């Protein structure tokens, strides 16, 4: 029963990643692409958590933690570059 609920949640999250990929393709300025990248990385954190619950392994949550740190770092670096240079 609970697996069915988690599978529904996984499919909705995949749909959200696909819609933000559309904005990544269309976006006119680099800022739009960076914000699409940020939304995709945050959605991927939820996706990794769902996968780790479905396969019942706690070690997969560490990957989500590294993911969060690295996505944040990437957005900060790009914003610093766009504003004035590192």
């Amino acid at each position, binding site marked *: 029963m609970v697996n069915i609920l988690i599978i529904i949640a996984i499919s909705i999250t995949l749909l959200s990643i696909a819609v933000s990929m559309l904005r*990544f393709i269309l976006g006119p300025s680099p800022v739009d692409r960076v914000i699409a990248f940020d939304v995709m990385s945050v959605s991927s954190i939820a996706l990794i958590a769902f996968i780790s619950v479905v396969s019942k392994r706690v070690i997969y949550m560490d990957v989500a933690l590294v993911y969060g740190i690295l996505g944040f770092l990437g957005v900060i670096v790009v914003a610093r570059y766009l504003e004035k240079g590192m």
Partner: protein
Amino acid sequence: MFVVIAIIIGVASLIGGYIAIHHEDLSVAIIASGLVSLFASILFLLLAAPDVAMTEAAIGSGLTTLIFFYVLNKIRQRND
């Protein structure tokens, strides 16, 4: 179940690789290559290799993006 996730993530990764090669703005190309690396990390996770996924996310997304933007900034300062 995991096959469907792998197909959708793989198609998104393919689109990101196409943008990384064929876009004329260099910063957009670097962001797209970081995106490909993040999606490859999910694919490694689906193959039950969390250590490889962690290394791929750290090196491919963090360090490569940082070094590429550092070099791009150096080039921009020299051209000014």
